[in-house]
């Protein structure tokens, strides 16, 4: 009887201690990679990026062989934290996601927005939200203050991006309400899109808000931000479906990088608003 009582007390105490102790603070354990990710350790995980996506993945101006930017630095930090190695595969943006789906690369980490359509083919770990900005020439000659103003306006967006789709949808709305449709141009790289606006071949370019602000800040005589939209898009790293180990490693690593403030530091380093950070989560369809 007494022993039963002792046992009961011990169990209750144990349960209480477990329940009340706050979860141990996140911490990187690269040395445990072998046990945690036996299939990934010792191999270079291939991360597909487009190194012409400022300020997320770009060439280092001091050494073109290096790749820097918010996404590139964050990826490196995450992989270092979980004790794995990565290798960047650099290609044109429209080829990145197909290469991950085909298994030619392991993940895409290049300012990729989460969409339900994409999530049918890849799993995501999201870590920030996107703002979308409209880059216009100085003085905003077409007086563009929202998407509703873009009917009949020459609009530019990246090939295969959600902004491209946004203009397509807006154009349908314009036609439905009896306004002219949007003459749309798609550019293969951001710099090409900037030239479209700069040379008056397009009136507005829709792209990442941080990039729009950076361009307007660096070239105050040429550009300004027409309008901004908090589109609520989540930005994440995409992995081919079925790669559970890699998904787990990325989720773990991102959690750590948010816990210790690394992600916030990197956002600031590249001129991005730290409040864009969202709690990382795994999203799968």
């Amino acid at each position, binding site marked *: 009887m007494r022993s039963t009582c002792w046992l009961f007390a011990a169990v209750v105490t144990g349960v209480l201690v477990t329940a009340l102790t706050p979860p141990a603070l996140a911490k990187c354990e690269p040395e445990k990679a072998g046990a945690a990710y036996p299939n990934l350790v010792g191999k270079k995980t291939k991360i597909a990026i487009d190194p012409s996506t400022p300020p997320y993945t770009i060439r280092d101006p001091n050494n073109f062989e290096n790749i820097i930017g918010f996404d590139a630095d964050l990826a490196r930090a995450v992989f270092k934290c979980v004790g794995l190695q990565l290798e960047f595969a650099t290609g044109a943006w429209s080829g990145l996601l*197909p290469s991950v789906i085909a298994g030619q690369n392991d993940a895409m980490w290049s300012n990729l927005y989460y969409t339900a359509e994409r999530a049918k083919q890849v799993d995501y770990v999201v870590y920030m939200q996107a703002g979308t900005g409209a880059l216009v020439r100085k003085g905003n000659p077409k007086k563009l203050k929202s998407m509703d103003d873009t009917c009949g306006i020459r609009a530019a967006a990246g090939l295969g991006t959600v902004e491209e789709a946004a203009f397509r949808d807006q154009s349908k709305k314009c036609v439905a309400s009896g306004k002219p449709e949007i003459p749309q141009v798609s550019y293969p790289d951001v710099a090409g899109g900037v030239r479209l606006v700069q040379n008056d071949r397009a009136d507005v370019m829709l792209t990442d808000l941080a990039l729009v602000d950076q361009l307007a800040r660096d070239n105050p005589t040429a550009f300004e931000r027409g309008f901004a939209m908090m589109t609520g898009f989540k930005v994440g790293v995409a992995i081919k479906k079925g790669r559970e180990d890699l998904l787990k490693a990325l989720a773990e690593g991102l959690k750590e990088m948010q816990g210790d403030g690394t992600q916030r530091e990197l956002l600031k380093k590249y001129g991005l608003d730290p409040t864009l950070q969202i709690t990382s989560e795994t999203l799968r369809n």
Partner: protein
Amino acid sequence: MTRWIASLLLLLLAAGCGNPSGGSGVPGRSLEDLSAGKLVTGDQGGAAPSAGNAVLQGLREMVLYIGSPFLLRGTLLALQIASLAMVGGLALGLVLALMRLSSFRAFGGAAWFYIWFVRGTPQLLQLVFLYDALPLVGIKLDTFATAVVGFALNEAAFSAEIIRGGILSVNRTQAVAAMSLGMGPFLTLRRIILPQAMRAILPGLANDTIAMIKLTSLASVIFVNELTFRSQQIVSQNFKFFTVFAAAGAIYLMLTTVISAGQAALERHFNLELDRSRSRPSALARFLGVGRRAAALATPTPESRAPDHDSVDLRLVDAAHPLAAAAVIVPNAVPSPTNGDSHPAFVVCDDVRKAYGAREVLRGINMTVRRGEVVTIMGPSGSGKSTFLRLINHLDRLDQGEIVVDGKRVGYDKVGHSLRPARNLAKARADARIGMVFQHFNLFEHLTALQNVVEAPVRVYGEPRAAAVERGMRLLTSVGLAHHAHHLPHRLSGGQQQRVAIARALAIAPRLMLFDEPTSALDPELVGEVLAVIRRLADAGMTMIVVTHEVRFAREVADRVIFMDGGVIVEEGPPAEILGAPKQPRTQQFLRLVEREVGTF
């Protein structure tokens, strides 16, 4: 040169095995001075430096970009992909071209389909498909391999048509001449057709090479970091598109300049009309296309050379060493005593029939030629004379009947009562040793007189080159052309060309010689020198069938004259009989016409 190209390719391949996709982390030379950072806009405001300084600064930057290892690595990658893909594409393209030219419908159809499909679909999609769809069926090519394979497969379709065009541009008579010498189809292709087709092929291939080097930028979508993509990356980081793209353009221009120069050099190599012995225009002048006309003008036309110089040669040979010359010419001429009486017939034709479509060309030819006999065949054009000759050495197929030469059917197996073409026709022709001389000479245009003569002995009969050259020189001497041994055919007169052609036919040590109107394409004053050579062959005991309209020659040289018309033998007999007192009205009419024609000269 082949070795050069091979080692260059090996080098490129070896370099390509590194890290072609240009990943991360490889430290390189710093270029901080290039990337001051801000976007260069048209409107710089008051802070802009003076225009002259800006231009100078821009030029300086451009030069620095041209020399930057980052862009040069992209250049090397583009070169590697383009050159390897070009080699693979050409090899496959040649196969496709031959398939399209093949008489097998399945081959031609398959090649046509491939070309139709590859030419008709965007190359970008082909690359993405190879890179991203093949892994689904378990074939995973890396970036570099995908680019090489993708561009090679694409190039194959385009070069197949260029090569096919080149092959078609070579006169078919060249292949016929090679066949008559016993050369097989692949030997003919390699030695005779392709070298002559190169002139037509080269400009198209140079176009394709240049286009491919530039088009490698398409492969950025499959992670190939070549020159254009790399310059785009720099621009998207510092927005200095003008200087960076100008630098990339300058690099491309340098590459394509090298290719253009290579094209000019190769075209010169394959240009038969260029006189190599004379002073040449400078490399730059050639590249710019100047000087070609000058060189062409400097080459003397065949008409401008004196023909009497050669006939002197011929007489000298005749007078000084008539017997020696005959021995050189007719190694197999001594009649064999065993065959002489027991097998008097050397060529036996039995009910030979041939039709082209519905048109019956030969309607039952029966004739026999004895060893050492000289038979001339006469008759109006369209009577089937030339077709008959071509059947004897199986340049064309019999429909019915049979032809036996020296106891063998050339290239047929007898199955039951019918004949079936043998599998190795070229070998059968070579073994038969039947020399043939054509109306239009059909010399190999890209080979000198001596090379024409030694080609078959060396390549078909495996004679050592030195021995073949020595014998070839003796043959050329015996037809009076020793001085012209190293001239290309187009520099010789018609009579000289025909004598080279006879020497070439004699070089295979023939047991039977076929002459298909050997003097019909010659100017009247050149006929004599060719007939003199044939006459000496007859004197030396060569068995010959000569299709000719030369009545006097037939009368003096032939043992027998055959008159053909409408695909049958109308009458035959000794020359005096047929030419002197023909019985058949058709023969009489033809001879009257021929003599009137001769009279007009």
